[in-house]
């Protein structure tokens, strides 16, 4: 009898030796005279357990982690292939509290299936959404997405249905669907994990979008920092063409949709949608002034849907189960589920998909287990490099767009970066400016020059030079950047700076400089 063993192929798992683990299992199983089939799945998202090996048994998929190649002989000697006991055994994966507490819609298949197996995809509900869309027609598809309350997961939270309707209503022979997979925010990796763990879901979501708005060509812009995602997605596209899921006659419906991968080139600003479009056109990623909006005048001047990976990957489930089912989850105007990402100095980091409204403290303390270092949490940055820093006392905040806006923070792409009490918040504020200086597209002066000045001003403050004057200058500078920047890069860089100053003022006092 052949035993099925899952070893993730996700880049995070590879980064801690998953390939070597897979090779060791094949080798040791052969030595033990056992027939195994090693399946390379996506990651379950419990990244602290990577490499998480799962063995299929009658009791379910039993997990072992974190497994290293060195531990494999002892695991196999102790009966891992029959689900045997071992100090690395974590039990049936889907019964783990961390897993059970989630509601996985977008990530339903990630970690479960072989990401590049069309049979797995079909067997786990794939294509149901696309088939339903083709049945009900473009207008009803847009309506379903609107009814679901789905908002863009890339950061701005714009209602997806409204954007799609604009593109659908704009006449044009040639329209595009562009998937924003630039995922530049530190602390975020859900786009990457979805692309590597369930690429067909994204292809299906993009195809539904194309059908809904009347587009025939799609591009996915993947950042070059994600070579594994690029490889996986290119293979997935080839397979999808071979299956008739892309091309001239999608699922025999007569729908034409072609999909291409484009790779970024190391510019954070290219995650901003108009900069991404410039980059897709082969130009410098300089931000465009809006209006015109991309929905009307987008890629090469044509009507274009630009959506984040998670937005598009949420669509198949919405079509399959209906907008109302999705809308039933969440709170206020934040509907459905969000894929939160726990990162930084965190004991149990990974992806946690759940309905909006969960508290930040629950995520960080209960599910995340506090810091990796075991020291107290001091600061948490939510929403990427342009997001605010919250103090440990401010974690009783509901994770939804409105509650965050009220607190002067933003949810962004759902990244949560935890810092322990060794963090120096003046240096984090300085970093926010220097990151902006490094990554500014250069179009507007407040951003391009202001960020450089910001670094200098903070250096003077912690250096003890005219502290009060320089603090006042810092305030002015933040105001200028907020008011005078064309896009959120310059406009929101004051977020981390001001919040650091507000909650951690002590860190901005002059340092004794060691001679």
């Amino acid at each position, binding site marked *: 009898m052949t035993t099925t063993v899952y070893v993730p192929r996700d*880049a*995070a798992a*590879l*980064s*801690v030796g998953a390939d070597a683990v897979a090779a060791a299992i094949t080798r040791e199983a052969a030595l033990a005279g056992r027939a195994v089939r090693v399946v390379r799945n996506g990651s379950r998202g419990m*990244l*602290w357990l*990577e490499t998480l090996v799962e063995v299929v048994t009658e009791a379910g998929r039993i997990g072992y982690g974190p497994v290293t190649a060195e531990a494999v002989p002892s695991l196999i000697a102790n009966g891992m292939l029959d689900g045997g006991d071992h100090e690395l055994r974590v039990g049936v994966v889907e019964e783990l509290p961390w897993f059970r507490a989630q509601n996985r819609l977008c990530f339903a298949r990630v970690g479960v299936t072989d990401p590049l197996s069309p049979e797995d995809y079909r067997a786990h509900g794939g294509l149901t959404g696309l088939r339903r869309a083709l049945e009900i027609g473009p207008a009803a598809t847009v309506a379903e997405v609107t009814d679901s309350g789905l908002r863009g997961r890339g950061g701005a939270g714009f209602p997806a249905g409204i954007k799609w309707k604009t593109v659908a209503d704009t006449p044009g022979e040639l329209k595009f669907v562009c998937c924003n997979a630039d*995922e*530049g*925010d*530190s*602390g*975020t*990796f859900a*786009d*990457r994990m979805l692309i590597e763990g369930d690429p067909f879901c994204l292809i299906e979501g993009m195809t539904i979008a194309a059908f809904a708005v009347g587009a025939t060509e799609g591009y996915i812009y993947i950042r*070059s*920092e*994600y*070579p*594994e*995602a690029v490889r996986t997605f290119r293979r997935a596209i080839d397979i999808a063409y071979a299956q008739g899921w892309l091309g001239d006659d999608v699922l025999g419906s007569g729908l034409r949709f072609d999909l*291409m991968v*484009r*790779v*970024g*080139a*190391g*510019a*954070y600003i290219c995650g901003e949608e108009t900069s991404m479009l410039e*980059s*897709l*056109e*082969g*130009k*410098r*990623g300089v931000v465009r002034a809006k209006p015109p909006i991309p929905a009307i005048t987008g890629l*090469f001047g044509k009507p274009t849907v630009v959506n984040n990976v998670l937005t598009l990957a949420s669509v198949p489930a919405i079509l399959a189960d209906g907008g109302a089912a999705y809308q039933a989850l969440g709170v206020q105007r934040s509907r459905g589920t969000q894929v939160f*990402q*726990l*990162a*930084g*100095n*965190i004991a149990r*980091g990974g992806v946690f998909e759940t309905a909006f409204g969960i508290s930040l403290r629950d995520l960080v303390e209960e599910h995340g287990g506090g810091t*990796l270092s075991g020291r107290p949490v001091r600061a948490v*940055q939510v929403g990427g*490099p342009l997001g605010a820093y919250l103090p440990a006392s401010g974690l009783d905040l509901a994770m939804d767009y409105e509650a965050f806006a009220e607190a002067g923070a933003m949810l962004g792409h759902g*990244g949560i*970066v*935890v*810092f*322990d009490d060794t*963090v120096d918040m003046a240096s*984090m504020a300085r*970093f926010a400016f220097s*990151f902006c200086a*490094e*990554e500014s597209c250069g179009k507007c002066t407040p951003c391009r020059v202001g960020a450089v000045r910001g670094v200098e001003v903070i250096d003077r403050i912690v250096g003890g030079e005219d502290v009060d004057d320089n603090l006042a200058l810092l305030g002015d500078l933040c105001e200028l950047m907020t008011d005078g920047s064309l896009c959120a890069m310059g406009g929101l860089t004051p977020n981390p700076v001001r919040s650091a100053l507000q909650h951690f003022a002590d860190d901005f006092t002059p340092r004794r400089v060691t001679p």
Partner: protein
Amino acid sequence: MTVVERVLAVIEAHRGDRGALLPILHGIQAEFGYVDQSVIPLVAKELNLSRADVHGVVTFYSDFRSEPPGRVTVQLCRAEACQAVGSERLVEHAEAAYGVKVGQTGADGVVTLAQVFCLGNCALGPAAQVNGRLHGRLDPARLDGVINAEYEARTS
């Protein structure tokens, strides 16, 4: 093949692409390891662009190197989540151990040290990409091990 032929082959492979300049530049860098100034006029001519346009694009994106890299390219993540678990100590170690500053290649042509802002491995930091392969939970010893292994793989 001459340099010109190799560049033309890359361009040819992307003839039908819309907005082909970025894919072409990536292709040239994959072929030569960097984008030499001298290829810019050729690329510009073939794509009907001005040299200034192409030069502007090459310099806008931090991926495109103007010089050949060392045998081992180390891209250290310095974004917030990795900072929270000590990426700056790793940068200090790498600079001292390999005698190069971030952004430089050692005089012996062995190590190129570069910085990146996020590799999508933020729950398993500090992270780095070494010759295109991702590594997590790095400390100085593990980083040295990875660099040595890559060096040996490239020289043996």
